[in-house]
């Protein structure tokens, strides 16, 4: 489970830091030490993501009971693990690059350019965090619509009124998930008289209003693209120095943010792209490439529907919603028991998803907030180090 792996990993790298700190760092000796640190950092990043990759369960549609094989790709639990890994990488990154180091080292080329780039990516990721948090609020809304449907369809015997009630909620649910930014704006006015639009429309506008707290022209897709710019692997002599962990951390940050935007409804996801360049030649990036391919595959399957996010629970909700709407459309009393059993199964599954969301969304949001804090804190620490470096190079008077 995520918590335990995190602890283990944390333990191992914290141990390493204390070793490093106990050393008397001579100028020559520290070089070997540094090489070793960097290699370990690379290895850990590779390990973390390969563990995530290997424990990602293949089949998403019926994974509710088969949790032993791992979490489904892009499910709430999986995203939480991803963020756990991110937080660990981030902590280790700081240990390698910042702790116990003479601050002047991070001001020397090529870090004088790479570090500001990373810090800039950090600031950009803060907006992504906020957008994703808002997006998860939108998912909570979907959850409530699904809960209404579940509550209605759970009734026995199932009457006409409850089916209509469920259909209304489900139509809103499905419409919300189909919604993209362009057509939602057109429907944006809420009128006083709400009759004649029993289903769908009302909630479409509601859905739009959920991403409303981001700045007007803010686009998650553009933000991710901006984070990707200037992201190139260090070459030649640079690849053995601190440029390497800078690049790795940037890549991990971009990957995690890209994944979040792919999964969660966000303002303007159009044009996000199913891929972004990852260094194929570097070992530590392989598991991330593997994950990216899986996500891209998922994307291709779903993209024609123009949906709002690949979150596994949402996808399943969508499917179940469609099939239950179908059922509602043809509902007649009495329904044959075979059909009823199937509906019952679907309702149960929908109920399970709601429960998962109820349990998982809040902690996921908290974790995103933790990522936010961490990025801010690191940024502050790096700026402080830059500050100190500047201080120590006071022009001789």
């Amino acid at each position: 489970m995520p918590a335990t792996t995190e602890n283990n990993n944390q333990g191992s790298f914290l141990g390493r830091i204390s070793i490093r700190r106990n050393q008397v760092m001579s100028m020559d000796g520290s070089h070997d030490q540094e090489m070793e640190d960097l290699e370990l950092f690379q290895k850990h990043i590779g390990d973390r993501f390969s563990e995530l990759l290997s424990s990602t369960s293949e089949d998403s549609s019926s994974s509710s009971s088969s949790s032993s094989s791992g979490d489904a790709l892009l499910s709430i639990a999986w995203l939480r693990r991803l963020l756990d890994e991110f937080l660990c990488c981030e902590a280790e990154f700081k240990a390698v690059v910042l702790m116990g180091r003479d601050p002047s080292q991070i001001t020397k080329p090529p870090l004088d350019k790479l570090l500001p780039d990373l810090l800039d990516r950090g600031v950009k990721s803060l907006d992504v965090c906020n957008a994703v948090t808002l997006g998860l609020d939108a998912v909570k809304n979907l959850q409530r619509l699904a809960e209404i449907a579940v509550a209605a369809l759970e009734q026995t015997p199932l009457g006409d009124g409850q089916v209509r009630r469920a259909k209304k909620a489900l139509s809103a649910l499905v419409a919300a998930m189909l919604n993209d930014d362009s057509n939602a704006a057109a429907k944006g006015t809420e009128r006083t008289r709400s009759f004649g639009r029993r289903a769908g429309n009302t909630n479409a506008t509601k859905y739009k209003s959920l991403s409303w707290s981001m700045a007007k022209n803010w686009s998650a897709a553009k933000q991710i693209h901006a984070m990707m710019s200037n992201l190139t692997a260090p070459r030649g002599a640079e690849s053995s120095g601190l440029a390497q962990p800078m690049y790795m951390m940037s890549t991990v940050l971009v990957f995690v943010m890209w994944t979040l935007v792919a999964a969660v409804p966000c303002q303007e996801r159009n044009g996000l792209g199913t891929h972004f360049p990852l260094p194929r030649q570097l070992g530590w990036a392989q598991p991330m490439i593997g994950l990216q391919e899986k996500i891209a595959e998922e994307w291709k399957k779903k993209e024609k529907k123009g949906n709002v996010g690949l979150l596994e629970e949402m996808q399943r909700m969508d499917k179940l919603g469609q099939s239950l709407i179908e059922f509602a459309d043809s509902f007649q009393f009495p329904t044959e028991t075979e059909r009823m059993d199937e509906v019952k199964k679907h309702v149960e599954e929908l109920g399970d998803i709601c429960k998962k969301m109820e349990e998982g969304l809040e902690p996921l949001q908290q974790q995103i907030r933790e990522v936010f804090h961490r990025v801010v804190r690191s940024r502050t620490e790096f700026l402080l180090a830059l500050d100190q470096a500047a201080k120590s190079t006071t022009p001789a008077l």
Partner: protein
Amino acid sequence: MSHSHRAEDKYFFAHTQRNFTQQNSLSFSHFLIMESLPLETAEKIILRWDSTASEDARDKMIFSGGVDRDEADLYLQAVDEIQRSLSSVSVSSSDKVNSAIQIAMARLEDEFRNILISHTIPFDPSTSEDDPSQTLPDLLPSSTSSPKHPLTNLEQDSTETEPETTNTTTTTTPLLRFNSDGAASSVHSSVSSVNSVNSSSYRSTSSIREIDLIPSDAVYDLRCIAERMLSSGYLRECIQVYGSVRKSSVDASFRKLHIEKLSIGDVQRLEWEQLENKIRRWIKAAKVCVRTLFASEKKLCEQIFDGVGTSIDDACFMETVKGPAIQLFNFAEAISISRRSPEKLFKILDLHDALTDLMPDIDVVFDSKSSESIRVQAAEILSRLGEAARGILSEFENAVLKEPSRVPVPGGTIHPLTRYVMNYISLISDYKVTLNELIVSKPSTGSRYSGDVGIPDMDLSEYEEKTPLDVHLIWIIVILQFNLDGKSKHYRDASLAHLFIMNNVHYIVQKVRGSSELREMIGDDYLKKLTGKFRQAATRYQRETWVKVLYYLRDEGLHASGGFSSGVSKSALRDRFKTFNSMFEEVHRTQAVWLIPDSQLREELRISISEKLIPAYRSFLGRFRSYIESGRHPENYIKYSVEDLEYAVLDFFEGIPVSQHLRRRSE
């Protein structure tokens, strides 16, 4: 709980209003309300209003002016009847009843939405300025003599005469009138203040100022519907509708308050000057948001949902304001993590102060478990702003230490850095209260053992009784002087270097003396040191310039072949006069251009120069004048009288080049 107490009041108001109307229109439906409704009639009523079934039902609303008000009560009665029968009837007949309930609930959901939308009183930011003292006293009976809005007056008179009888028709009738008129919202909010003053006093001392977002009769209707939706298991629909309508209303209020949606990236990109304006506006808007807008939303939730079910009011409140609250705080958050630089300190402190002020209100408005994240975020931003302020102070110290300009200020006057730093620290002293809370550690100063030549020494043990902030101010002055000492070395003329130090340290002393806050913080001990320092610089200047000049007015070396009595060497004497003259002329020419901006200091230094120069010259002249005057061309050697020099000294340190030569008395 005065919250619920007040909600009860409203409830009671509305109730009496309705009874009042009913008494005037004794109708068939009224009769039905008194009696219990037969199930069949109830079903008929529900079906009559099934909007999927008839055109008429689709076009009319039950809870609106268009239809007889009693119809609404009848409808509610019918729903109650159906619900009651659901729990008692046998399974076989329940299907029909069940269907009726679904129809009724769909209907009520639409009615609920319609009431919310059509009765929303537009939020007017001007009625909610954040100073309660301006309006509240007007509403208190003690201030009846002051001119008032006629409607307020009316309202007040009625409360004065019958403070406890708010349930009488005389008081509720005008209330009703105001309520149904959205334009009179300001009056209406005053009315609600009267009520709160009467019913509970603690609100009047709080800075929270709620207004009524929806008139109380509509609130009553909403509450009636909410109760029924909840009891039929339609709570989620209710919350959904409530949240979506109220959120767009809050959105509209945000636009009125000019609260912008800026991403963190946007804020980092904007020029600081633009941000300063935005911070100013944000502070105002945030106060209105927390104390009026959010507080009123919370009150509305309580009025409608309090007692209807467990923490439904909280759920609805968060549904409405979570997004807006995050948006609001996002700006402050973006500022708190922006890059630190000295010019940002004071606006960040303003923001910190404003948020500190708001914290108790935030804690009240967001007191529930579900709104914990908002509370936590506000606290986090506050602590980050504090951290930013600390960071900026250290950044500032660093900048003062490193300020790199090397070009000497002409005339040795006050360096722009000195002015800047002193203005900065006097602003710091204006923010003393806040900063004393934030700055809790003393500066990391250099010490004589650190061996770092880039940082000045400062012995912290001398300032043990001072607050950390005080020590920081002293430290800033120390590093300012350290930097100025460095700059003084770029003057070629050592005298000018001393004059420069004298001027600048004197300026520092004047600045500190000029502000009682600053003086207290820096303390007299350190002020004495500073005074000593500029006096020393003055002395050094005089030594540097005048020892050389006065050297030529000494007796030694003028007497031929040693013996004192053996007479004076005329040629040596002539040389002395000539050299003295030319040296003095040179000093006069250069130092007239030098500048001491402080007139008193300038005067003092001139006096001090004169006190040394004039007696020496007078006595030299007295002793040796006769030797020169007895020879040829005495005017070539004794060019200046004592008075000439006295006048000449007055040209010093004016910063103006002297065009002509020294004036002579003879001219």
